[in-house]
């Protein structure tokens, strides 16, 4: 009697586990589809969800996300300027490609300035740099609703030096994807 029950309960549990796994991976795949479909989805997304490799797929997707996150580049600005320099447009293109791939990432754009200038002016200038970077990303096809801006003015130096080399590194817009 007891054996009989476990005999037909076991396959039932197995089916439930597989169904649950499929449902879970299905959910994960659907989330990005809420926005425009990415033009070049990474291969990880195409891996068929097999019940036993669910954890594996998630790990691979995470690894691909981390790799892309590490490829995000900072955009630099001229002194007292907030327009995107010609030599920085490739960087916007690079970032836009990454952000198109991961449509569920909210992106925070952080505008920064070098230490010259006053705190108040630099807060406003950093904001203009963040907004200029946002505009450029929108022009490259990123949904503006995903992009928030913050200005730190001269408060968050990337290079603590006090010369043009350091200042050039500090006049920047950084992108943070969560």
């Amino acid at each position, binding site marked *: 009697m007891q054996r009989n029950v476990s005999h037909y309960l076991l396959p039932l549990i197995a089916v439930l586990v597989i169904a649950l796994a499929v449902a879970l991976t299905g959910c994960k795949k659907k989330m990005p589809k809420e926005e425009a479909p990415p033009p070049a989805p990474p291969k990880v997304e195409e891996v068929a969800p097999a019940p036993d490799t669910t954890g594996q797929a998630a790990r691979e997707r995470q690894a691909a996300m981390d790799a892309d996150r590490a490829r995000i580049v900072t955009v630099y600005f001229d002194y007292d300027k907030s327009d995107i320099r010609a030599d920085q447009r490739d960087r916007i293109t690079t970032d836009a490609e990454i952000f198109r791939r991961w449509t569920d990432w909210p992106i925070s754009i952080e505008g920064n300035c070098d230490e010259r200038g*006053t705190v108040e002016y630099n807060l406003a*200038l950093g904001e203009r740099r963040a907004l200029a970077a946002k505009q450029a990303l929108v022009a490259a096809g990123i949904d503006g609703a995903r992009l928030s801006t913050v200005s730190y003015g001269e408060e968050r130096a990337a290079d603590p030096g006090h010369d043009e080399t350091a200042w050039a590194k500090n006049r920047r817009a950084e992108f943070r994807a969560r």
Partner: protein
Amino acid sequence: MLLLAAAAWAQPITLRMETRSVGRMEIVVMPFRAAKDSAFAGELPRLLREVVTGDLAYSGYFNVLDPEDLPPDTLLQVKRVGNKWDTLRTFSGSTAARVQGSVTVAWDGVTASIAIFQPPIKDAIHLKDFRFKSDDLRAAGHEIAAWITKMVTGEEGGFASRIVFVVKTGDSKNLWMMDWDGANPRSLTQDKTLNLSPSWAPDGKTIYFTSFRAGNADIYKYNLETGHIAPFISTPRVDSAPSVSADGQWIAYSSSGDGNPEIYRIRADGTGRTQLTVSYGVDTSPSWSPTGHDLVFTSDRGGTPQIYRMDMDGASVVRLTFAGNYNETARWSPRGDLIAFASREIGFQIFTMAPDGSHERRVTGEGSNFDPSWSPDGMKLVYTSQAGGKSAIWTCNWDGSNARQLTFGLHASQPQWGPAVALTDHDH
């Protein structure tokens, strides 16, 4: 002298500048003594006099003379009779007043009776008792110096006022406050975030400031009596650089809420929000004229940051600075006659100019000096200086004389001089 000063005060702005060129008045402060019926006063009279003479000497109005320092021919009638100084009868031409102090110590506190004499009138022309606890000796000294200055010059000295400023620790910046002479520095906020650009309301109880406590720059109100911090202006963009009008009614500030940093004004109760600038560039650092009719601000609409003036409706915009390619943080003097600002060459230096942009004059010299703010009487400036390498708060007279460091061992910046604390009872 008293009449002269009073008459000058009543003149229109352009003539008021003349009061700045009047030489310092000589004032004699006699040694304060313990009253006859006082309990043991110890060093108290001497310490109190030190605070008073320190304030008067630093005020920019006076040359403070010790009776011993006077050349014999100017004060022929001052002579020692036993342990007492005889009445002063002859003054040199510019000597304005003589001050005497008598200190009574009792079980419930201290009373300092201060008398101001203006010979040839024999009796004291002003007389006032100041009661205080011996722990509050410095505050009492500041109050006495403010009263003497008010009585002799008609001016509200800044002695009872306080200065709020910003201290950097690691990646954090917090608001601090100190007395006008640098005494009693203490922190107001203790956050792991950025708190910037404090601005006093004229009641001396509220400080508006910029803070990142919610993640990006917003404007908050700090209540000095309760320590309570309340949000005031908060958009998803940068809201910064608050400046309170002299009557406390309006707060001007910079906000990029519409996509670009522009100047707005809003009532202290949060109503009447009005956009004052519309330009493609950065508009920030507004500062009200004492009448509240006009504002000065920084804008890079012409290609570089420069100082502009406009009326409170954003009309009649005039560019004021043309020399140099980087002029910022204009602050209108409470007297109305001068605008202080920071101009950058290699480092910053502080300059003043008339409200029409004329009469530009350099105030500071060594190192980098910026963030100017006026004392309540408009006679002194407080500012950030990197003269010693580390950023510290300094003060000087309006013409740059008498520079003095106020903070030590703190990475300090963005000082804002608070209002003069009103004296309750002016005279007997």
